[in-house]
């Protein structure tokens, strides 16, 4: 077929043609891991669509052939470069006629050129002419029965870099419920007791994808009636202390040599490596997304007015569903901000960064009484009761060793800032 590739271990085209998502699914196939049946409409078809203003000739027949045997599918965007949340996804699409798939693919392709997506590409140096692929995949149902569920998993802890699987699982739900943050998830290890066979399969998958990418990885998975399926894989893209620890550990494990390990860490990662953090091992009450780094401890105030009143007595953390202009006084009075809704680009996140206050957003389903003492970590998104131990780096020993290797490479052992030591090594390694 000209515009469509059925995904299997034999596909050997690049992410430029297949898009990152389909390319990852091909990797999973090659590793012998379970992937629901899928095909991809290539970025080339999208480019033709963008150029001519209509889907390319012949795609309709190819789609009609490719969708034979599918009943319910998802149709997802997948650009060669990640553009999270910028484009359309169609879930639970029942294929009653060939036109259903055609219009879903057209919707995904059209979403490449929304003004918001264009702005995102301008700001991130992504060429407008790349186009996106569209992955059409048989739906698997995490809400099928009591032995079904869905989740996301990192092969290592993205907060610290520690070599333990990390993620969220939601029993009896479909995948979007996890990614959207609409439902309260459970820590990934809960899966071990409840579905030991799925857990064992997941651990095996994480170890195989790590060996392939030679890096910490992220997967999305669903299990249906006790059967594990992988829906997406990509490198973990850790930052700060976690990036330092993963690179150092991978060198110790013999996966990377020291030079590669040094190049894995950007000097930019070191800027926040000493930002205060909640110490590892504290009981985490809830987890959201870190929107402005730093740790804040204070009593919960649930309105701007009480925040202003209570702040006279001592530090407060303003806890709101989301924020509006009415909350500005409360935000100004608070030492930190916690919201139930929103992401890193929300009103609360923008204001928190403007004020330089630690912020955690998107913590759903958490009920906190006014006056309760809590601590929030704006790097990891963790929320802890009371005032836990705070550390200024979670990777002190790792950082020390990595910078030692950097000095070995540069030959310069004079006292300098961390980022300078790493930059000097990079300069030598990149010659």
């Amino acid at each position, binding site marked *: 077929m000209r515009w469509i590739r059925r995904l299997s271990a034999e596909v050997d085209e690049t992410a430029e043609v297949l898009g990152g998502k389909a390319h990852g699914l091909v990797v999973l196939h090659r590793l012998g891991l379970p992937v629901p049946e899928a095909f991809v409409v290539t970025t080339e078809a999208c480019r033709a669509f963008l150029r001519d203003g209509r889907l390319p000739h012949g795609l309709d027949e190819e789609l009609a052939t490719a969708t034979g045997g599918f009943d319910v599918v998802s149709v997802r965007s997948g650009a060669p470069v990640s553009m999270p949340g910028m484009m359309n996804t169609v879930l639970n699409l029942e294929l009653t006629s060939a036109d259903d798939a055609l219009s879903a693919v057209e919707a995904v392709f059209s979403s490449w050129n929304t003004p*918001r997506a264009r702005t995102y590409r*301008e*700001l991130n140096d992504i060429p407008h002419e790349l186009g996106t692929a569209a992955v059409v995949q048989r739906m698997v149902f995490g809400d099928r029965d009591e032995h079904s569920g869905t989740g996301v998993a990192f092969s290592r802890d993205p907060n610290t870099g520690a070599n333990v699987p990390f993620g969220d699982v939601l029993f009896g739900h479909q995948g979007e419920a996890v990614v959207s943050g609409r439902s309260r998830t459970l820590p990934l290890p809960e899966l071990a007791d409840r579905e030991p066979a799925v857990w064992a399969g997941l651990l095996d998958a994480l170890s195989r994808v790590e060996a392939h990418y030679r890096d910490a990885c992220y997967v999305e998975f669903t299990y249906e009636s006790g059967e594990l399926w992988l829906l997406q894989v990509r490198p973990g893209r850790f930052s700060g202390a976690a990036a330092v620890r993963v690179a150092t550990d991978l060198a110790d494990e013999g996966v990377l040599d020291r030079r590669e390990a040094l190049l894995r860490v950007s000097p*930019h990662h070191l800027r926040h490596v000493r930002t205060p953090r909640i110490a590892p091992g504290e009981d985490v009450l809830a987890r959201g997304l870190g929107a402005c780094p730093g740790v804040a401890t204070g009593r919960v105030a649930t309105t701007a007015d009480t925040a202003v009143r209570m702040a006279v007595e001592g530090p407060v953390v303003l806890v709101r569903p989301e924020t*509006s202009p009415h909350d*500005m006084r409360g935000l100004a009075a608070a030492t930190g901000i916690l919201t139930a809704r929103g992401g890193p680009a929300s009103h609360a996140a*923008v*204001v928190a960064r403007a004020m330089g206050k630690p912020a955690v957003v998107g913590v759903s389903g958490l009920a906190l009484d006014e006056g309760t003492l809590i601590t929030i970590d704006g790097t990891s998104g963790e929320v802890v009761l009371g005032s836990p131990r705070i550390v200024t780096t979670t990777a002190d020993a790792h950082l020390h060793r990595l910078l030692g290797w950097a000095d070995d490479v540069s030959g310069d052992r004079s006292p300098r800032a961390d980022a300078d030591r790493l930059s000097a090594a990079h300069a030598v390694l990149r010659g």
Partner: protein
Amino acid sequence: MSGPDLLVLHALRCVGTAGLTRLAATTGLTEPNVESELIDLAVAGLTTRDADFGVWSLTGAGRAADVKRITDELESAAARPAVTAAYDGFLVLNPELLDLCTAWQLRPADGVVIANDHRDPSYDARVLDRFADFHRRAAVVCAELSAALSRFGRYHVRLTEALDRTRAGKLEELADSTSSYHAIWAELHEDLLATLGIPR
């Protein structure tokens, strides 16, 4: 045409507790005129002043009065369909505005997101360029709104001024200050919810 008393009353509903400077910017009235309106509204039991902070806010009765008067204004101008349509346009633009503000505060570098220290003029120029493009599209929504209800006309004026101040070198006027483009946009969001009676 909303009277100055309604403008001041409604500004307090949209921005929450505020001082004279902020209310003057929001309404387009002078500070003495704002204060005079606030005092009359206080006599009527609709506003109250916090002496410790020198700021004003609505009373419960003031909020109820604004709900009624703003709804009456909307219905008597038969503006609900137009404002609702403009609000739909606003909701399409809103995530992009928040992306742009975030891009002004944080930037990608070697695959890492770092604080934008504004030392790279080419990056800032690129964000401002996209902001200008966004502003042209926001202007369409603002024009629809002010055609429906003239009191909405202030938003385009204020947003344009905030963008101009940023271009003139006041970098905090895009996303960070209480008079920033982002802050004005958030007020407009609140105003649309209040005008249409949509709960948060």
